[in-house]
């Protein structure tokens, strides 16, 4: 009697038999047959061949049969659009049925059939259903508008459905309101600019009322919608919070988390002195903790969100450490998240408990978990100074267990502890050295080598130890090789007499026998440094290192604030803004926390403005970051590719590398370095070093800067105002704005780097992707001193056009990667074409005439330059400043005709005829060129130059 009978097949060809049954006269047999078809569908079998037969069963008064046929239709209509049209009449008829259940079912199913022809017929029934007397039909119709919008957005707008949908927000039935809100939110997602959800105090009030009455799912939609509202002052924020707090006790965890999002966001506007602020903080803790007693999947999402919340407002959960203690049978993904939060909550008050737990975890079975637990002990030591000693002794205990991976992790973290508390715990070095032989992971080996090099003077047999590593030099990973090189150089500088041979050996291994350019470069720079000025070498290599920062894995404040606005979404699970990963997120609007207000400051306060501005600027950033990344990552982010590999340039390269050198690749190995960076071997230099090296290096290039800097004020090629290319939100606090200029034959990229993060930025480097005209930096990006928070620096980066060429779309698109000590960032920008107009672009008259005739007419392009009131002479001189040369001027019937030429850096000539009527502010520009695809961009350049 069960449905499994529907799965049995006969030998005779199943489809054939089903066809016969579907066409049977007996109702019961028909229904059984449709059920069989549905059963096949559930397991992914293709039964689309039965389409006409199934559709024939649609005309029935049996609701179950009708539903089954509809189920089938939804699955297969797309593949059989012509057949699907057969169903339309029945749909339209059903939309008029006296039974609201059938009306709703029909309109709902029609919306699911994604066939253009059907959607045309959908409009009328949908319009009726949106105004149906039965709320069940209205709420179904509301959702249907969203479906239709997804298929044909234009149609929905033309038919005025959006307005009807907006009206439904004021519907008397809370279910209808919830669905209307959900539908509008969905539509708004694909239309960020359309002010669809026009939230004002009145509509907010309606939503809050509906919130109390609608189903749990509707509550989620409404809460998510509320979160996008910007209250006008703290009083309004408080009153919304008061009405949202009861949701914290809802049994549905998604409702709870959406409520938390609203509260976290609006709390930002409340003054911390307010009593209510404290009450709210207290109310937030219990529901968050309760989420942790739910199913493990829910726990995981909750934990990822709690991770954000404790970074933003640690006070909420500071007393709840124990609920994050790991249970033996938690799934591993829950365990790892809990560990993370435990460290974030660790403080002097609870550190003893935390350490005891971590020590317990370090003896568990799961290797990943154990490793993370050992690391966590190290992080505690760095975070809570008072506990450092206990942490070190715990780590030593763990090393005594001799469990291989525990020992290795412990050594890696002890290295960090040395950097945080220098000259305090070096007594343990002897214990560490005992375990030298058991280290087989590169990171642990590198850490150990760093320790030996750094404290060579305290380790009697440091030379022997390092020598033992040197034996298998070529089999080591790059990380270890670089570390070993640096460590031996350090050793040599500390004990020069005994280790001369060793240093010679490592330098020759690195420079002569290695294929790795990073290693070679570092080898060369050490070699040169040691041979020219050992004192300087000592200052550089043994420079005092900055202490490592307290918490290395905190999310950048700008990003954190954005993520708080996305609590409960996928973004909060991935800890990335949706724009970074959601496919096809067209112009995602960046959300930002409301500014804290007194009571007068409104939402339009300047604080809020920048984020909106950045959102508007977004088109400059290529949406499909994926391919850009792929392309740029293949390039080595090093100094410029131009110029022959002269000694000077190799010194430069070495220098950059040295700064980033051995010291730091090790020191920061677990701090920053994305794998991509590690691969390119371009490691982060310590901030102290650039100051030392900057001056001598920059001297040659300084001249160049002076030159360009000086000319910049003279009249010259038109320079557009700077625009933001890389918003801080996308680049962990680094904001880049810039423009392009051309002065006396040299192209410059004028940049302003602004540090909007909390930490110092250093070690900047820039790299272009291949582009249409081979633009490439002619010198490395020189930022002479580390960039302190809130500091800006202006840089003029000289460019040349000898880089590799690849046609871009649009043609003047330039993809840029900028690196600093934090990460590598990518953006793309469009450069105005006139920076490529060369100074010798004036063509001989005869030549001009001949060429004009020679270029076929289909290569001619015409453009209108509107709203320009200059006269012919002014135009001519203005254009000449940007290397567009007037060859002849004629007056034909009161019109001035200018004949002009220009040449691009790659030798392409462009000929122009500019027609100016004195009375008409609109000029006509005709362009002829053998490569007509540039015309459009030349026109854009004309337009820009003439209008500025």
């Amino acid at each position: 009697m069960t449905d499994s009978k529907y799965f049995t097949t006969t030998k005779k060809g199943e489809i054939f038999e089903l066809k016969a049954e579907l066409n049977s006269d007996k109702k019961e047999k028909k229904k059984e047959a449709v059920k069989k078809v549905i059963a096949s569908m559930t397991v992914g079998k293709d039964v689309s061949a039965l389409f006409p037969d199934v559709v024939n069963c649609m005309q029935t008064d049996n609701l179950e049969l009708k539903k089954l046929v509809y189920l089938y239709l939804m699955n297969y209509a797309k593949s059989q659009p012509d057949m699907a049209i057969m169903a339309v009449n029945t749909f339209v008829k059903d939309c008029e049925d006296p039974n609201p259940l059938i009306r709703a079912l029909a309109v709902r199913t029609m919306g699911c059939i994604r066939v253009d022809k059907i959607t045309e017929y959908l409009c009328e029934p949908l319009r009726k259903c949106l105004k149906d007397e039965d709320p069940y039909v209205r709420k179904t119709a509301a959702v249907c508008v969203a479906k239709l919008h997804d298929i044909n957005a234009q149609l929905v707008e033309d038919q005025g459905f959006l307005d009807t949908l907006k009206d439904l927000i004021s519907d008397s039935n809370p279910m209808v309101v919830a669905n209307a809100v959900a539908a509008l939110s969905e539509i708004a997602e694909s239309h960020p600019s359309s002010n669809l959800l026009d939230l004002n105090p009145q509509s907010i009030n309606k939503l809050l009322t509906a919130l109390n009455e609608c189903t749990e799912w509707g509550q989620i939609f409404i809460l998510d919608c509320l979160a996008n509202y910007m209250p006008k002052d703290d009083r309004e924020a408080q009153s919304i919070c008061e009405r949202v707090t009861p949701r914290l006790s809802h049994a549905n965890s998604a409702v709870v988390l959406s409520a938390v999002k609203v509260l976290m966001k609006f709390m930002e506007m409340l003054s911390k002195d307010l009593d209510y602020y404290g009450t709210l903080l207290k109310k937030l803790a219990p529901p968050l903790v309760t989420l942790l007693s739910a199913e493990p999947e829910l726990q995981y999402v909750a934990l990822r969100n709690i991770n954000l919340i404790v970074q933003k407002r640690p006070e909420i959960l500071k007393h709840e450490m124990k609920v994050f203690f790991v249970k033996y049978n938690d799934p591993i993904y829950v365990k790892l998240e809990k560990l993370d939060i435990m460290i974030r909550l660790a403080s002097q008050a609870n550190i003893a408990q935390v350490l005891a737990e971590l020590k317990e975890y370090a003896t568990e079975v799961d290797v990943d978990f154990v490793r993370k637990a050992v690391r966590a002990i190290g992080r505690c030591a760095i975070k809570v100074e008072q506990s450092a000693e206990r942490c070190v002794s715990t780590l030593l205990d763990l090393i005594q267990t001799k469990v291989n991976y525990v020992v290795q992790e412990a050594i890696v973290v002890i290295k960090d502890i040395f950097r945080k508390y220098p000259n305090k715990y070096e007594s343990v070095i002897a214990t560490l050295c005992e375990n030298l032989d058991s280290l087989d992971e590169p990171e642990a080996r590198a850490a150990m080598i760093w320790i030996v090099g750094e404290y060579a003077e305290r380790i009697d047999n440091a030379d022997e130890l390092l020598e033992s590593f040197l034996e298998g030099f070529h089999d080591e990973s790059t990380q270890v090789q670089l570390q070993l090189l640096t460590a031996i150089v350090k050793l040599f500088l500390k004990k020069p007499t005994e280790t001369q041979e060793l240093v010679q050996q490592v330098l020759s291994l690195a420079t002569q026998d290695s294929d790795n350019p990073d290693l070679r470069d570092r080898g060369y720079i050490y070699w040169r440094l040691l041979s020219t000025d050992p004192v300087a070498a000592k200052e550089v290599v043994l420079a005092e290192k900055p202490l490592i920062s307290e918490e290395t894995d905190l999310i950048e404040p700008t990003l954190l604030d954005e993520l708080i606005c996305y609590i409960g979404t996928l973004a909060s699970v991935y800890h990335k803004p949706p724009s970074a990963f959601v496919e096809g997120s067209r112009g995602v609007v960046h959300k930002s926390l409301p500014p804290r207000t007194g009571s007068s400051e409104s939402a339009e306060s300047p604080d809020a403005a920048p984020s909106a501005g950045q959102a508007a600027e977004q088109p400059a950033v290529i949406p499909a970051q994926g391919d850009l990344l792929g392309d740029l990552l293949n390039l080595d982010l090093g100094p410029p590719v131009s110029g022959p590999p002269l000694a000077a340039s190799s010194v430069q390269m070495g220098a950059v590398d040295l700064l980033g050198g051995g010291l730091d690749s090790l020191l920061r190995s677990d701090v920053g370095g994305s794998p991509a960076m590690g691969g390119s071997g371009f490691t982060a230099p310590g901030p102290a070093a650039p100051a030392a090296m900057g001056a001598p290096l920059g001297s040659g290039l300084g001249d160049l800067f002076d030159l360009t800097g000086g000319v910049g004020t003279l009249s010259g090629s038109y320079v557009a105002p700077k625009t933001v290319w890389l918003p801080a939100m996308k680049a962990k606090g680094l904001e880049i704005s810039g423009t392009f200029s051309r002065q006396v034959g040299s192209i410059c990229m004028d940049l302003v780097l602004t540090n909007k993060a909390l930490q110092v930025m250093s070690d900047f480097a820039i790299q272009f992707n291949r582009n249409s005209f081979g633009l490439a930096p002619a010198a490395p990006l020189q930022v002479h001193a580390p960039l302190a928070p809130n500091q800006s620096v202006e840089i003029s980066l000289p460019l040349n056009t000898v880089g590799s060429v690849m046609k871009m779309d649009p043609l003047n698109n330039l993809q840029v990667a900028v690196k600093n000590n934090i990460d590598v960032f990518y953006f793309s920008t469009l450069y105005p074409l006139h920076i490529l107009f060369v100074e010798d672009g004036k063509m001989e008259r005869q030549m001009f005439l001949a060429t004009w005739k020679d270029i076929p007419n289909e290569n001619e392009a015409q453009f209108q330059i509107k709203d320009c009131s200059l006269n012919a002479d002014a135009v001519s001189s203005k254009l000449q400043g940007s290397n567009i040369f007037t060859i002849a001027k004629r007056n034909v019937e009161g019109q001035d005709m200018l004949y002009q030429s220009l040449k691009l850096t790659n030798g392409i000539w462009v000929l122009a005829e500019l027609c100016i009527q004195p009375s008409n502010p609109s000029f006509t520009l005709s362009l002829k060129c053998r490569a007509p695809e540039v015309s459009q961009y030349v026109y854009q350049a004309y337009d820009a130059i003439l209008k500025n």
Partner: protein
Amino acid sequence: MKMIHSLFLINCSGDIFLEKHWKSVVSQSVCDYFFEAQEKAIDVENVPPVISTPHHYLISIYRDKIFFVSVIQTEVPPLFVIEFLHRVADTFQDYFGECSETAIKDNVVIVYELLEEMLDNGFPLATESNILKELIKPPTILRSVVNSITGSSNVGDTLPTGQLSNIPWRRAGVKYTNNEAYFDVIEEIDAIIDKSGSTVFAEIQGVIDSCIKLSGMPDLSLSFMNPRLLDDVSFHPCIRFKRWESERVLSFIPPDGNFRLISYRVSSQNLVAIPVYVKHLISFKENSSSGRFDVTIGPKQNMGKTVEGVVMTVHMPKAVLNMNLTATQGSYTFDPVTKVLAWDVGKITPQKLPNLKGIVNLQSGAPKPEENPSLNIQFKIQQLAISGLKVNRLDMYGEKYKPFKGVKYITKAGKFQVRT
């Protein structure tokens, strides 16, 4: 917000046995990413619930040996999806008595109808069991016989009454000859006890599950002797929050049938009584292929009630080959493949404490195991809510009849773990 694009049900051996698409059809091959993650996780419980693939996100839950894998295409609240998936599983359980591959396959058409009714274009439509049951009748042997004779269907053809009212969880026209209201106060103790027997962490997760079979539109209020215990509570939507805030009384018009009224947490700040203690000695000798195992379980602070249904499970270290033990009470098994020792103790009588003792055989030559196994204990105490929560009275308004009322208390071990 186009929430769930498709749903795949996958069994433990990796067969996709049901798929449902709410928009266009997504190829089964998208599950390959899931299988990959599953392989990496080794243990089924460890498959991460959110997986990203080049074009989709897979959000999954693992329930009753079935993976519910949903395919998502846009930014969506994962909790929304996970809650919904659990609701789907609950509905299957409710309809078919169990949420298993066989049950689902046996009722595939109903399953499909249910899924269609529960979600429309990513918007959950009807997830309340009361409403669903009016739209689609659950299968019973009797009904399928009747249906096949009379040709009637199991799809309701009138609009469910609760669907649009302000109490969507209750259907109208409920009628019983015996009117009953039962409440089960169930408390689970989650605890971590360290080697020395002191409590590292303990809390009580409590729920009140109700079975209400009352005619008409009863309006109930439930009050407690000590409502202060409940400071962290999650409510069923039927509960009037304002009444609770002001009077600490649970006031509600109940759904019909079984449902969870509230769940609550009594945290470690309040003292959580631990009803059992464990004395243990598990040691492995250096350079020898054996070890000792000696565990005794005893009752404490159980307010005169008997601790029963005691089961202890231990994941022994990998190096353990076999165990030779004697139990003074109950029986034990050791699975040499999974290394799980399970001791079914039964009831604890304070006069004669159950003990399990003997020799552990290790792989010869293997190093002495570093980790000490954790003991997971299960137990049950009838007629006791360990937090001390007590129902004071239940009053009914709105209806005239006199219902049968009953409250049952039970305390169980949740994640109760003793470190050694």
